[in-house]
């Protein structure tokens, strides 16, 4: 478990460093995600699991992902006055945007699968 956590921290550190050096407009952890994914794929190609404990550490974090949103979420109380004046607009934007995104994505997925005649599924 500890080695798994160390691997996650190490890849985040790599990602943050790379973003700092190259001024990439992407969050450091996302670069860390991509680098870890590449490292795991490379490990599979070479037939060695490079970070045997990373699955356990990742599973533990991701199964409680919601907890990690809570501290920042509580911060909205200190912005309540800002949010309150725009609450109707916020609700409209969120609901319409979510419905639109759902519809566009599902339709594109099905259309693309039909068009390219994917081998998966019916």
């Amino acid at each position, binding site marked *: 478990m500890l080695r798994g*956590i160390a691997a*996650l*921290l190490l890849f*985040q550190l790599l990602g943050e460093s790379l973003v700092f050096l190259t001024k990439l*407009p*992407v*969050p*450091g*952890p*996302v670069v*860390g*995600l991509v680098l*870890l*994914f590449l490292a795991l*794929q490379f490990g*599979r190609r070479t037939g060695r699991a490079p970070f045997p404990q*990373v*699955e356990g550490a*990742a*599973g533990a*974090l*991701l199964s409680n*992902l*919601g*907890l*990690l*949103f*809570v*501290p*920042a*979420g*509580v*911060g*909205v*109380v200190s912005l309540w006055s*800002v949010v309150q004046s*725009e609450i109707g*607009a*916020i609700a*409209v*934007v*969120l*609901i*319409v*945007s*979510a*419905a639109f*995104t*759902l519809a*566009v*994505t*599902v339709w594109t*997925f*099905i259309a*693309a*699968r039909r068009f*390219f005649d*994917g081998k*998966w*599924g019916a």
Partner: protein
Amino acid sequence: MRSPVDLWVYLSTSPLIWLTLTVCTWIAASELSVRLKRNPLVNPVLTSIIFLSAVMTVFHIPYEKFFAGAQFVHFLLGPATVAIAVPLYLQWDEVKRVLVPIGVALVVGSLAAVLSVVLLGTLIGLPRDMMISFLPKSATAGVAMAISSSLGGNPSLTAVLVILTGIIGALIVTPLMNRMGIRDYAARGFAVGLTSHGIGTARAYEVDPTAGLFAGIAMALNAIATSLIVPLAARLLLGP
């Protein structure tokens, strides 16, 4: 012997009590959610935030004091984002089989999520700094907050918008898809994972295992896509 009031004064200034309260609130909120059959309205993230906010308000605790304790949990958002690589790696064989539809739907869906906010926000007249906080709302919270703060948005506001987007998507996906007559559960799952990240993914797993798998894939990929699209959209459409 000191009085309980002294104890309260002592504890309320230490980070320990707020960290403990955050973790215990989360456990209780998760338990409540399981008891109520994971109804999206009692989403544990939402109920935890409401409860803790109420405690802060009633006891007049400044957010900085609360965050001094809760930051130890908050810090884990970074490693948790990196951790998304693991399910993506484990499910890569599934992804490869439908790589083209996934890629096309990812780009189009991610653009739809961002551009619909720009369009609606402009029509309604949302202030620019608030719009920045809205743009990454379909990405998982850690990524969305990082994007928001790097562009001058408000990460706390983004966190709440991300969570609300998650809950809204989880609530409307099933009736919407049924009305659209869509029975392809891979496509349905992909759509809700892209729109509503982890909360949508949890919902998809309740409906159908294939939907859940594709929702998880969409969440991971949209974390990457959103972090590429939002800075670009902000620069091109909202100006510096």
